[in-house]
């Protein structure tokens, strides 16, 4: 997946300009940057929901129906909707079955595998309401996996989760990478970002991209986060505001 001089905007509000970068296949790419840097907006654009105002965003996987799976921030999901875990995960299959075609055995198997991958098989018949935040998030990630896409996008999938859920989601991401898929994940945690294969540091533009060692330099972070950086000994601390706005 490649982007050349991409500009993204909502109406008159420009969010990201001049973005040129590559997202490698079979790798985990982390999007980092301060609030409003354009992380979620870029994920929206890759998912095909926001056409670039300028430039060229080439996502070959999007040529196939359901080729890009998008796991939204859990706070954006309607929590009043009564759904079981299995119903939720099954939605991922609608990308290929469409609105009407009956679910085949392969669809049910894909749902089973996704439930298994996030260790929520025993919760399949439970209602989303009854689950913990971490379990719900695992259901949403399983929904993305069930789609069987070549590109998996996740918007802050592990922010504020319990350790068990966090680990299951990280394991699922690794498994996707091992299976040759491109995983693109936005995060506020530089520790998580350092564990990724590839980084995009955003701040209304692409400040830096490449391996964690290349991107996570003091100069780059200062350029992206401005005055919100604090040096304590040999550690860099980011004073960011709350993760959701």
């Amino acid at each position, binding site marked *: 997946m490649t982007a050349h001089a991409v500009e993204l905007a909502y109406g008159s509000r420009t969010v990201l300009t001049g973005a040129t970068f590559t997202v490698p296949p079979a790798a985990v790419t982390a999007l980092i940057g301060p609030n409003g840097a354009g992380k979620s907006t870029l994920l929206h654009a890759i998912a095909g929901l926001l056409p670039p105002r300028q430039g060229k965003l080439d996502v070959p996987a999007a040529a196939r*129906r359901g080729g890009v799976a*998008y796991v939204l921030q859990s706070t*954006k999901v*309607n929590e009043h*909707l*009564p*759904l079981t875990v299995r119903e939720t995960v099954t939605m991922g299959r609608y*990308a290929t079955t*469409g609105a009407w075609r009956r679910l085949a055995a392969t669809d049910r198997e894909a749902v089973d595998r996704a439930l298994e991958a996030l260790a929520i098989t025993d919760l399949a018949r439970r209602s989303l309401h009854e689950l913990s935040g971490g379990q719900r998030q695992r259901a949403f990630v399983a929904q993305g996996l069930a789609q069987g896409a070549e590109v998996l996008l996740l918007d802050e999938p592990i922010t504020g989760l319990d350790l068990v859920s966090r680990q299951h989601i990280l394991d699922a991401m690794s498994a996707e990478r091992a299976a040759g898929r491109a995983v693109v994940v936005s995060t506020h945690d530089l520790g998580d970002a350092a564990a990724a294969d590839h980084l995009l540091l955003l701040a209304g533009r692409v400040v830096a991209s490449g391996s964690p060692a290349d991107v996570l330099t003091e100069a780059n972070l200062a350029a992206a986060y401005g005055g919100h950086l604090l040096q304590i000994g040999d550690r860099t601390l980011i004073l960011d505001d709350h993760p959701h706005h």
Partner: protein
Amino acid sequence: MDIVHWFADPYAAGFMQRALLAGGLAVVATSVVGTWVVLRGLSFLGDALAHGVIPGIALAVLWGFSITVGALVSAALMVAGVTLVERRSRLDEDTGVGLLFVGMLALGVIIISKSRSFTNDVQSLLFGDVLGVTASDLRLQAFAALLVLGASVLGYRAFLVLSFNEAKAGSLGLHPGVTHLALLALMAVAIVSSFQSVGTLLVFGLLTGPPATAALLVRRVWLCMVVSVALGWFAVVVGLFFSYHFALAAGAAMAGVSVAMFFTVLSIQALWEWRRQAPVMGKE
């Protein structure tokens, strides 16, 4: 009078049987659409749409053309207005929709005020005339109920994912924009086909009362629709019963029972929660 007659008498007359059928059909259409309305949190929009049909009906009465056509045209205009507000307004959506709502109501009343039988017309328009439904009204209602039911079955996945999250629906290729418009259209059909029974002011009671009550009771969307229809039918039967014995306005009685059911279930559940948690001090 013995007890059996007391319960059976209300439903003996032909016009009462037609009222029962009209109410029952209205419930099917409103419950199925209403479930999506309630679960998506679009109640206010539903209320606005219910009032949006008034000018069209008023014009139809004044100029003597089909009330259904008038209501549908009016509803279509309202849907167009709502869509404009949703897409273009920089203000809170509710403000724009609220203004449309009042504007259409005002326009409707202005039109009716030109009519000679003002009071009668306003009354049946706002509060319905379920005891006066004709066979052709019933045929139209049956058609509307089937249409709404069919569309909800065919569009179930699209409606479900749109209710889950609009961006998710988009990323799955389920066309959230078209789906939303289809839902508005189905709301209009349910409202237009039901206002004869309960009136444009009270149709909102059927659109949200039974589905909201069902949502308190069950945890699956399709089950919500089924339970909502059952609760709605109960409201119609009980409403007509009270209307007959105590000479109450029939539409208001049916809508009133629908709303009363919601608050009864809500209160019982709150009381149950409170009792369960009573020993634990300080917990909400």
